[in-house]
């Protein structure tokens, strides 16, 4: 028996079995304990509440929602709003981060210092404070409804949001979409053709400009051929507020600004470290080949830098998505605000709702990191 215990392999297995058993016992105890307490205190449990009427209204919703909708609809609206702000935030912060990151390495003293100042300032202020700051700035500086800033009677800006005309697609508008897709496909094909031509003959083919022309020109052509099938719903002041059009609320804008500006600092640093990690010889070789500084950045440095920066940028995208839950502070109706907030309070079923919410964030994070890991693997240097 003792000899068996001295066997390294047996001992290893024994310890693992003990640890797992211990874990299961604790998990079992917690589950029993919780179920028991819930029953003793007469708290309602189960998922039936998802089908009961919510009874409250949600300010902005990408899908139809009314107080008669169910808590399950609340969940869907919250999730969609989370995804919308995360998606917009990821795009905005990437553009901003790229510009700031490259500026941070500029040889121009002023640009360099400005970028450094931006990063140090916004990276070191808690993002919740920044959200509250932008929200109060938006509310305090913009005029009231009746004194809105008016741009050509179609765009209005006031402290209830930015109101823009909303396009309405009539029958026949499909051709515009089809034209756009055709133009994009043609652009992709041209791009590949240009690379092939370049590799075979060394000649440059202006694929980018031709594609751009196609992407703009083809849908425009379709628009006129089909007799202008797109009309616009213009916002107009009726009663208390502007009616019609599309509105970007102050809550959405403040959250988007704060998240993008905050996350951009980390992306900028990731890109800067990526660029600095590219061996100096690469840049020198590019110069020796006669590439201009812009060309060397575009064709030699950035492709390698991005490769190095991707893993930490992925992390920042996930952080941005998770940070969007701080919107509860300013009332943007995302998942935590309305589902893990209002719905939870109206039904009182904390365990179920928090469980669903946590699982959802976990799933979003896993999916995003899966997509980006795939992208990362594709972008990796292919060793030959």
């Amino acid at each position, binding site marked *: 028996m003792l000899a068996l215990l001295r066997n390294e392999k047996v001992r290893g297995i024994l310890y693992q079995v003990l640890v797992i058993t211990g874990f299961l016992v604790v998990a079992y105890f917690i589950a*029993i304990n919780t179920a028991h307490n819930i029953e003793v205190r*007469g708290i309602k449990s189960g998922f039936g509440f998802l089908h009961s009427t919510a009874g*409250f209204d949600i300010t902005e919703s990408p899908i139809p929602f009314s107080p008669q909708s169910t808590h399950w609809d609340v969940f869907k609206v919250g999730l969609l709003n989370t995804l919308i702000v995360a998606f917009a935030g990821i795009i905005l912060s990437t553009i901003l981060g790229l510009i700031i990151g490259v500026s941070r390495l500029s040889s121009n003293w002023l640009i360099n210092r400005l970028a450094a100042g931006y990063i140090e300032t916004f990276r070191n202020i808690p993002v919740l404070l920044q959200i509250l700051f932008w929200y109060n700035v938006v509310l305090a500086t913009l005029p009231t409804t009746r004194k809105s800033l008016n741009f050509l009677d179609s765009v209005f800006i006031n402290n209830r949001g930015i109101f823009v005309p909303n396009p309405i697609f009539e029958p026949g508008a499909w051709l515009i979409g089809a034209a756009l897709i055709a133009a994009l496909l043609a652009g992709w094909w041209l791009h590949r053709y240009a690379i092939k031509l370049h590799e075979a003959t060394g000649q440059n083919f202006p694929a980018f400009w031709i594609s751009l022309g196609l992407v703009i020109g083809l849908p425009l052509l379709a628009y006129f051929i089909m007799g202008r099938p797109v009309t616009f719903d213009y916002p107009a002041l009726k009663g208390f507020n502007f009616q019609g059009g599309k509105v970007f609320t102050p809550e959405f804008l403040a959250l988007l600004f704060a998240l993008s500006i905050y996350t951009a600092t980390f992306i900028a640093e990731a890109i800067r470290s990526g660029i600095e990690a590219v061996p100096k010889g690469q840049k020198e070789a590019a110069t020796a080949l006669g590439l201009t500084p812009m060309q060397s950045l575009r064709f030699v440095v950035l492709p390698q830098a991005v490769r190095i920066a991707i893993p930490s940028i992925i992390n920042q995208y996930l952080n941005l998505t998770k940070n969007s839950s701080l919107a*509860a502070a300013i009332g943007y109706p995302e998942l935590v605000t309305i589902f893990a907030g209002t719905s939870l309070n109206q039904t009182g079923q904390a365990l179920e709702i928090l469980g669903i919410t946590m699982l959802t964030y976990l799933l979003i994070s896993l999916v995003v990191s899966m997509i980006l890991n795939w992208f990362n693997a594709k972008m990796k240097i292919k060793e030959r």
Partner: protein
Amino acid sequence: MKRLLKLSAIAALAVTTLSMAGTLDDVKKAGVLKCGVNTGLPGFSEADSKGAWRGLDVDYCRALAAAVLGDASKVKYTPLNAKERFTALQSGEIDVLSRNTTNTETRDTTLGINFAGVMYYDGQGFMVPKSLGIKSAKELDGATVCIQAGTTTELNLADYFRSNKMKFKAITFDTNDQVDKAFLAGRCDILTTDQSGLYAARTKFKNPEKFVILPEIISKEPLAPAVRQGDDQWFNIAKWTRNALLTAEEKGITSANVDEMKKSNDPETKRLLGVEGTMGKNLGLDADAFYRAIKQVGNYGEIFERNVGANTPLKISRGLNALWNKGGMQYSPPFR
């Protein structure tokens, strides 16, 4: 395997004994009453410049602490927003929730809590800037409304606009302060909450005269303290402490004359103050439990006038909250 089963049986047993232990014993052992209050609502629960909590809801906790522990100051206040309050009570983080909370059927039956009698009869109202020139809530079609998330107010609002075939947009925030701030910044046209809350909010505004409270009251909001379900003794203590405050007013017993009243010839007064009978003992408290509550905190009328009455910035009249024999609805079952 057998062992594991035994272990879990013991564990389950341990849990049972734990949850059976009474809140009263816990409070006595801790020597302090844990009370959940509003984060800041003038007249009901607000920390003053010295950090001391004041208000009608706060005074209920003080009376309860005086009855149970003999000292009204032995309260630990936990400021909670509307969304946190029930979880805090369910999880045992607080012993009593005294936070302008409306007693409703759903809350009473599904949250595992019990409401211990109404401390303040309220109803939901609307406040608008005077400059809009609105006279009635029926003119509010299309308005944007600032509101606190997770309240009955939010549901009443949707019901009211729906039944009057009007449209609205609700902007919801976590705390009262955020709601008020957004309203003042012009993010919304209307502020809605319990009418007492509207009066309270207005006292904090820089130009209170620029805002009007509309005449319509669109709901019943009986605000009541709540305790956990399943501990009947503690529930009784919470109920009868509130009843004691009301009976004291009815009998004319105040914090000033409570010592003289001990010598009163009225049998119910004697029972209430513990001179005769076993009123305190029945609840597992000292005989003079309610005497201490009245001595240290005062009767319901004193509490009302001190916090929200005519001489406070809120200037709320007794209305529904007058005693039953003075035209109101505040009524206590007899101390017998």
